[in-house]
Each structure stands twice: as structure tokens, then as C-alpha cells.
């Protein structure tokens, strides 16, 4: 009980930010199309429910990748680093797992998707570790290297796909991965579907969401229960004191970025190890937006792994809801604006809390003084 209370009070600034962000979003809806504004807000709040259980499944599917990138960013935050490179790590991880999924057809049964997932994770890990190595050994700012590595990943992967048998020239994207390499549905398709006549119209959700939650728990344990987590957090809080205590802070930086990269790599693998009807890597000059949404998720979840699961689900919920806004003649980008506003408000909420406190104090003091004067009279 005590723990739940503590968690709620820790989450209250985030909840305030969400409410404020939604209100501001409502104003935007009012300005752009006043007639449908109420219905628009309802659509956003309903999120996946707009399309019943299938919509809910879509929320879980979308949440999978942003929970993992959120964990990636949040974990790096704990060690005092800003991982803006989740996008690139996700691309690299996704690409390698697609390669394994499509090419290593000699792997039997379930082993195939497992190996593909693992290789994607390792690839993301290497990509993240590169940032850590540059930071630890050459003192290059991680933000700069991560941003540059995002572009290197995107253009590099486009180049490789175009010049490899992975290229589906017709659709200008990667070919389908082998059936064995698709992440199993884990029975979730039997829950999250809508009936169209007698046809089960299932959502894209798969076992990935379970893997994402599993990783959240693992990260939670790693951060809070192990000596390794103790070292990483110490480095994040105070690098000098960590060095003084004999902690190898270079190792901490490298391993922290490697783990952050691995988590983003898993996100990429779970996104692209999809059935033929699912996602493919397009040859396009676009950085994977899931990486940047991970920053929002981590900020809103205050880098707490369990909090990140919830904020990931929430952001996915309103994003899916935002997709349905188009039926009301709104641009679906409105939802990106709202998410942006929520992030701003969550950064402000800490500031706001301090302001509120000092106002409250002044008031109670004035009241006291007033009483004192009254008594004298």
C-alpha cells in the first residue's frame, strides 16, 4: 500500500502535465475545427477503444517499441547520459534482425526468431557502445555522436538494403522475413481482434509487448538491486565521487550506453520481425520516430522503468487515438503537438511545484501575521 502511495505521489507531476497538455490540445482542436472539438478530444481519450479490441491491440503493438526505446533513454539518464541515439540503435537492431530473419533460414522453428532478436539486440548494443566509447575515452559529447550515428545508421542501412538481396524493388522496402522468424503472437491475436462477419480481424499485437514488459522488470532490477546499478547511478549523480570510490567510470559509461543500445535494438527487432502484412524497413530518408518518442516516454516516466511501461502505453494510446482524428477532418499530426506539449508541461511541472509551494507559504504567513495583528487590537 505504502509503495503504491509513494508511486502515485511521484507520478503526480506527470499526471498534471498530461492533463495540462490535453487541455492545451483541446484549444488547438477548437481553433482548427470548433464544431468537432469535443468529439476530437473524446477520440483522443478513447485512443485504441475507437476500434474496440483491435484498436487496443494496436496500442499494445505501438507501445512495445516506445516502451523499449523509453527504457533505453531512461536507463542512460540514470547514468547521467542523454541517449538521443535510440533511433539509430533501433534502425541498426531492426536491420540486423531482418537480415537474420530473412537469410538464416537454416535455423529451425522458434530458434529462428530468437536468434534474430538476439542478433538485433547485439547490433543495437554495438551501436550504443560506440557512443559510450567515444565519450569515455575521447570525451566526445554523447549527444553529438549519437545524432551523427543516427544519420549514419539511416543512410548506411538504406545503402546496404538497395545493394543486397534484401531489397524488395517493387515496394522499395525490405523483403518479408521467414515465417519462423516472425515474433509469435503468444495467443494475443485471440484476444485483440474485432469480428467482421465471421472473420477475425486481428490487430498487429504480438508477444513483443510481453518481452518489453519483461525487459522493464529486468532494467528495474538491474538499476535498483545490483552493485552494477549502484555503480551506474553513482556515476550519474556524481562522477568525481564515483572515481574517488574506485568505480571505473569509463567502464560505467561504456556499459551503460551498450545496455541502452541493446534495449533500442530489441525495439527495432520486435518492430520489424513482423509478418508479411506488418512493418518493413522502407528505403526512405526518415529517422525512426520511435527513437525520439522514447525520449518523451522516458521524461514522462521520470526514467523509472515501471513508470516507463505506463507512459509508453499512454503515449501509444493517444497516438493511436490521434490516428482516428483524421475521420473528423483533423490532421493526425495534432497528436504529435499534444505529445510535445505534455513533455513541455512535465518539464515545467517541477518548476510549477516550487512556485506553488512558495506562494502557499507566503499566504499562510500573511494569514498568520493578520491573526497576530488582530489579536493585538
Amino acid at each position, binding site marked *: 500500500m505504502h509503495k503504491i502511495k509513494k508511486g502515485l505521489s511521484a507520478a503526480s507531476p506527470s499526471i498534471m502535465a498530461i492533463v495540462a497538455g490535453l487541455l492545451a490540445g483541446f484549444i488547438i482542436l477548437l481553433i482548427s475545427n470548433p464544431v468537432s472539438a469535443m468529439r476530437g478530444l473524446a477520440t483522443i481519450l478513447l485512443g485504441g477503444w475507437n476500434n474496440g479490441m483491435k484498436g487496443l491491440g494496436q496500442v499494445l503493438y505501438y507501445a512495445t517499441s516506445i516502451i523499449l526505446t523509453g527504457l533505453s533513454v531512461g536507463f542512460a539518464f540514470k547514468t547521467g547520459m542523454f541517449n538521443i541515439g535510440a533511433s539509430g540503435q533501433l534502425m541498426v537492431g531492426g536491420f540486423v534482425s531482418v537480415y537474420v530473419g530473412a537469410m538464416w533460414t537454416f535455423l529451425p522453428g522458434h530458434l529462428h526468431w530468437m536468434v534474430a532478436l538476439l542478433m538485433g539486440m547485439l547490433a543495437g548494443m554495438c551501436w550504443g557502445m560506440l557512443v559510450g566509447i567515444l565519450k569515455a575515452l575521447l570525451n566526445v559529447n554523447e549527444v553529438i555522436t549519437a545524432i551523427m550515428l543516427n544519420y549514419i545508421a539511416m543512410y548506411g542501412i538504406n545503402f546496404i538494403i538497395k545493394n543486397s538481396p534484401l531489397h524488395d524493388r517493387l515496394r522499395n522496402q525490405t523483403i518479408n522475413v521467414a515465417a519462423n522468424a516472425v515474433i509469435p503472437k503468444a495467443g494475443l491475436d485471440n484476444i485483440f481482434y474485432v469480428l467482421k462477419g465471421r472473420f477475425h480481424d486481428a490487430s498487429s499485437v504480438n508477444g513483443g509487448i510481453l518481452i518489453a514488459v519483461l525487459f522493464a522488470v529486468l532494467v528495474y532490477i538491474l538499476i535498483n*538491486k*545490483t*552493485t*552494477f546499478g*549502484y555503480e551506474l*547511478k*553513482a556515476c550519474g*549523480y*556524481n562522477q*568525481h*565521487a*564515483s*572515481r*574517488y*570510490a*574506485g*568505480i*571505473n567510470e569509463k567502464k560505467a559509461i561504456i556499459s551503460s550506453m551498450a545496455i541502452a543500445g541493446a534495449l533500442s535494438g530489441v525495439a527495432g527487432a520486435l518492430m520489424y520481425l513482423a509478418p508479411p502484412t506488418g512493418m518493413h524497413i522502407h528505403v526512405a530518408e526518415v529517422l525512426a520516430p520511435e527513437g525520439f518518442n522514447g525520449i518523451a516516454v522516458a521524461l514522462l516516466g521520470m526514467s523509472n522503468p515501471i513508470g516507463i511501461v505506463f507512459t509508453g502505453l499512454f503515449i501509444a494510446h493517444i497516438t493511436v487515438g490521434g490516428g482516428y482524428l483524421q475521420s473528423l477532418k483533423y490532421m493526425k499530426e495534432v497528436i504529435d503537438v499534444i505529445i510535445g506539449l505534455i513533455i513541455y508541461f512535465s518539464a515545467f511541472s517541477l518548476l510549477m511545484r516550487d512556485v506553488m509551494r512558495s506562494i502557499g*507559504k507566503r499566504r499562510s504567513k500573511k494569514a498568520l501575521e493578520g491573526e497576530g495583528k488582530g489579536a493585538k487590537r
Partner: protein
Amino acid sequence: MSDYIIQMLHITKDFPGIRANDDVTLELKKGEIHALLGENGAGKSTLMSILFGLYQADGGEIHKDGKKVEIRNPNDANAQGIGMVHQHFKLVHNFTVLENIVLGVETTQNGLLKMDQARKKVMDLSERYGLRIDPDAYISDITVGMQQRVEILKMLYRDNDILIFDEPTAVLTPQEIEELMNIMQGLAKEGKSILFITHKLNEIKQVADRCTVLRKGAYVGTVQVQDTSVEEMAEMMVGRKISFTIDKQEARPGDTALKVQGLTVDGRHGKKAVNNVSFDVRQGEIVCIAGIDGNGQSELVYALTGLMPISAGTISLMGQDITSTTIRQRNDKGLAHIPEDRHQYGLVLDYDLQQNLALKNYYSDQMQSHGFIRFGQVRDQAEALIERFDVRSGRGPETVVRSMSGGNQQKAIIAREINEDPQVLIAVQPTRGLDVGATIYIHEQLVKERDNGKGILLISLELDEVFQLADRILVIYEGAIVAELNGKEATAQELGLYMAGSRREETHA
């Protein structure tokens, strides 16, 4: 016309959660040197900041020459003739002495500087009060003592006649302190009124006429210094009787614990921060490295503890060469370190107390199994150390260290380091910024560890501390050890000469 030039009557000032001044009255006579005595956190600086207009009092009045005045900011204070020498000087380093003095009150003609008049006034003042300066030297090139004289001239140049000195002796050598005392007496003789903030009783005894004592924000009393003994003033300050001399037996040194040979550390600008330093520390003795701040003490300690690379020399601990080992290996071999900056190095301020107390042993088999921290053990250790070292905090082992007082933070560090059962304990300014009670406690702990057969290397800037604790004194000047003195026989004068670099033992260098 009042006897008093400044009266601060019933001043009260609140900060969130603490009353810094509670009905404090301070009355300054014209031409007197009035000491303001109190421990750290007693509210001295707050009171002076109110007088200087940096804070506004929540209650009480300030009178000048018997008339009530409002001081809202330092400009108001300046207009009332109040000037202040801050503990950390407020000088522009790449300006000359003269430029610093006139800064803000430049004499101009048609928008052009007229430095000649200013120069004449400064040189007159300098001569009249015996404040030796070189008006054309850059601040960055002159000694701390001269910088302080520049600060004093700044006040005089603005025709201030109420001068506040905030802990002016903390950064000076004994000789410079002597000179400052003479200057202060000269200023008082010329009719200036001086407020002198300090916690050093000997200095008060030497120059002050009267002394006002604060304790925990409250006014304790004002005494005539002549009629009051040092012990009585100390008791007023602390609120109980204290013994200044700690019980310290003759040292019985054993084997060499720490041996340093030819240690050299490169500094900035191609200079050597530590230059060919050799010494050793034996078990059961306290060796003190005395010197003025910035003469290579920090670099020496960083080199010994492994925080900074060395360019030459060897270090050995209990006969084992540790020159090229990591920080962790040195810790494990028995080198403990109470760092100079407890916030930057000594503590992870956002960790709670139990986590900080485990900072040096969280990886030991006692505190973890298979990589998982044994929280029960961490807590037990914290509770035992809190009990043994009397570390006070709001929520025990779970107190976030940032919220603890400086004295208790320092106690926590000392508890952690002593708990490691080291062979050699390096303590760098272990009592910096602490009140008398905590200082004595920490001194006692160091002596106790010495008597337990540990080698103690103490780096201190406070001469009182050096004489109090040291069995042997090494004087460091510009990165080199210039003298080795016996802790019992050395005098402050002698030590001061070495510290200022005006004498060196040729045999030792």
C-alpha cells in the same frame, strides 16, 4: 548624538525552515574594533549581509548615529559609509590594482577616465594607513595578502568609515595576519569603526575592543574583550565548557606505512604542481603537510590516492609498490582518503546515508552476493556507524545526504573511511567549515586512529589544527617540501616563514 555609529536593534531574519537571526542586537561604537563571534551557522554572515543590504531583515531596525536608516541594497550601505571585505575577494583578476579600486566610482571628464586624481588619492590612502600596494600590478600576479589590502583600499577610497571584515584571516600566513592586525588597529585609531567576523578567539583577544557573541542565531551577549578570557568567550560561543587541548599522548611510531619518493606531478602551464617530493609516514604518527592553499597540496593528495597521474616517483604502502595501481586497489590495500571537497568527491549527495556509507565496500562479499546488493547488510552497517560516530540526520540511514548538515556529512565520510580499517588515512582539511564541537570530535578520532597504529597524513591550512595534531610537520611551498619540523618544537613564526617561501631548509630540498 548617539555614542554608537551603528546600532542593529532586535534584528530577526527567517529563511525557509530556519531562523537565522533571532532578536539580535549589535551596537558599534565609533573608532572601535568590534568582533562578531560565533560558530558556523550561528548567523554572523546573515547579520552582516543585512547590514550590507544583501538581505532585508524581517524584524528590527538599523540606526546610524541614532537615526533610523533603511538599507535595501549594497548601494544604500555604501551611501551610509558601510564597506565590506568579503571572505572571497571580489576583484577583477585581469585588471590592475588601481583599476580595481576605482571600479564603479571612476572619476571622468567628458566621458574619459581621469586616472591621475584617482591614483593620487589611492597612494595617499595607501601611505596614510600603511597599506602597501603596487597600483599597476595585475590582481592575478599579486599575493593574497596584497589582494586583501586592495579590498581594504576599495572601502577607504569610497570614504567608508564602517568597515566589515568577513573572516579576513582565513587565507593569510601568520606574518600577513600580524600585518592585518596592525592595519586594523591603525584604521581604528584614525576613527574608522570596524566589525570583525571570526571564530578565532586569539585574534579577537589581540585586536578587538568588544565582542558580540551569537549562538544558533540568537544573541548571547556583548563583552569587553580585555576583561574576558578566551575560555569564557569560547563557552559563550559553544554554550558549554570545552577543552581546547585534546588528550594526546606522545607518538609511538612503528614501521613505515607510506613511503613517497621523488613524486612529481605536472601542473598547468608547464609548471610542476608537485616537485620531487619525498617523505614517509610511519604507523602510529600524524604527519601534517602545512602550507598556504594552492601550493600543490591537492595535486599531491590526488597523486597519492590515484585520482591524478604522476610523471615521476614511487609510492609504496606497507612496503608494497602501489605507484601504478588503480584507485580501488589502493583502497583495498588500506589507503583511506578523507577528501578536501566533501561535496565533489566525498559523497554522492543524492544517495541516502546508508548508500554513501557503503560507497567504499558495496562490492565486498559482505555487502553483495552474486552482484545483488544485500540491503539488510548495508542498513546494518549504516546503523552501526551512525551509532558509533554519532552521525545525526533526519531519517537515519534513509536520509538523503544532501539534506544533512556539513558537520554530519563530514562525520559520515570519516565513519566510512575509518570503518575500512585502513593502514594509512589521508585527511585533507577534515574540519573545514565545521563548528568547534565537530572539529574537536574529528580531531579526537584522528588521534584515536593514530593510537590504533594507523599512519595519518593530514593536509591542513589551519595552523591551529597543525599544532594541535601533528607529530611531524612538513611544509609545502610551490609543490616542494621546504622544511620538516618537529610538531612539538615548531613555532608559528618559523612555520610562517617557510610557508611564505621566504626561508627553506637547504638540506631537505
